[in-house]
């Protein structure tokens, strides 16, 4: 499983037809064949599909919801939905984008569920999501001071992210954190590309206003 996370950050950007992390898993089969096997009810094929995509789904859910356990719960729901709806997957977008779309919808539903019960106001930020558990991330860590600074910065960024409206947050996470292209983001959200661009512009501006103190420290006066 950890192999999925060992990939270079750059490979996540626009891999298109090939699934994320496919190169790091031995015995990889093309996406179309994998989907076809899953449709025949092959449990091993579906397990492979889950292994291939669970990292990105959990990561997306963590950034959108701010909690690891909730994110894992949502990820399970996402794959149950994928299993149920795989028959309707037409292959017009890539499997990755299609799964992202289901994940976004599930996260949105979860937020609405919280909102109805007014739970979203009393949720503190999950500290676990500020600690990089990636071996690569740890390798780059310097002194304990640097580590503390990095952690504080991540906390502020995540807190600012969670304050944004859901549609702004989702577009930012998909584009900036997950590294999708605007076209892929549009497919994942089911909106036109122009809408993605305008939302992205507004979301970045909102983020800039929230993080202006942090940025001044970064870019200098």
């Amino acid at each position, binding site marked *: 499983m950890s192999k999925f996370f060992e990939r270079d950050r750059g490979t996540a950007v626009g891999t298109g037809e090939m699934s994320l992390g496919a190169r790091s898993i031995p015995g990889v089969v093309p996406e179309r064949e994998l989907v076809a096997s899953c449709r025949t009810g092959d449990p091993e094929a579906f397990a492979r599909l889950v292994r291939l995509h669970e990292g990105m789904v959990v990561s997306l859910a963590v950034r959108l919801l701010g909690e690891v356990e909730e994110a894992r719960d949502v990820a399970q729901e996402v794959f149950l939905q994928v299993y149920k709806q795989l028959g309707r997957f037409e292959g017009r977008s890539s499997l990755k984008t299609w799964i992202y779309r289901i994940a976004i919808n599930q996260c949105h539903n979860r937020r609405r569920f919280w909102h109805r019960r007014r739970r979203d106001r009393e949720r503190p930020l999950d500290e676990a999501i500020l600690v990089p558990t990636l071996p690569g991330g740890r390798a780059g860590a310097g002194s304990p001071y640097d580590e503390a600074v990095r952690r504080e910065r991540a906390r502020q*960024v995540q807190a600012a992210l969670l304050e944004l409206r859901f549609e702004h947050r989702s577009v930012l*996470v998909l584009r900036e954190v997950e590294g999708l292209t605007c076209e892929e983001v549009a497919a994942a959200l089911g909106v036109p590309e122009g809408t993605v661009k305008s939302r992205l512009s507004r979301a970045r501006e909102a983020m800039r206003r929230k993080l202006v103190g942090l940025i001044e420290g970064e870019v200098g006066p």
Partner: protein
Amino acid sequence: MTCAGVRRRLSEWLDGDLEASLSRTLSVHLESCGACSRRAHELRAVSGLLAELPRLETEPVEAPVAMRLELAAGSRRPALAYLFRSMAAARPFILPSLVPAGCLLVLMFGALMVLDPGPLPEVRLAPGASASMPASGTEANPLFPSAEVLLPQQLAALALSPEVLAGQGEGSLFLETVVARDGSVAGVTLLEGDAGLEQPLIEALRQQRFQPVRFRGRRVAVSVYRLISRVQVAPTIPAPVS
């Protein structure tokens, strides 16, 4: 281009999504305008901050997903799902097929309306038909025993003379006895059995007296069905003494 116009397009400029000429105009403006240039730096820094959010490694969700799928499969009742699976495949045809179905329905209703012979003739009872029916609970229209209408109790046990007991008949008699409102027997009708041979018995039954039966406070006539059997009893033969 004004500063406001530049700032509106900064996000697209950073993504490299602007047309070449517009992008050049923006770059020229940014070189000369400190405030806008600073804004561009800040937006770039936002992207950088988001991109360096730590990646997390969590426990795989594969196992719980597999378990939940197994649970769902175990609790599923497949019969209807199998029945309608072919319909799900025919989904694109469902909507177009509604049009001929609608036409067919309209045609059927139209045909029914054309062929309709009009309202059925009204059935009328002959005048006074209901008036000729005697009132319920009278001797001519007695009630039957039920939860509210008790069986009539006879005032004295049926006393049969030796002539009646020594009658010729043998077998069962099925009789309807109508007990009148005053407790006397209004009529005995033989429904099954030989009337000629059992006439003395029937006469004896006509003389019986009953406790009057009441229904909702008033006396009513009640019809009772009775089955009477006559059995020949042979004298017992003493067992031979050995």
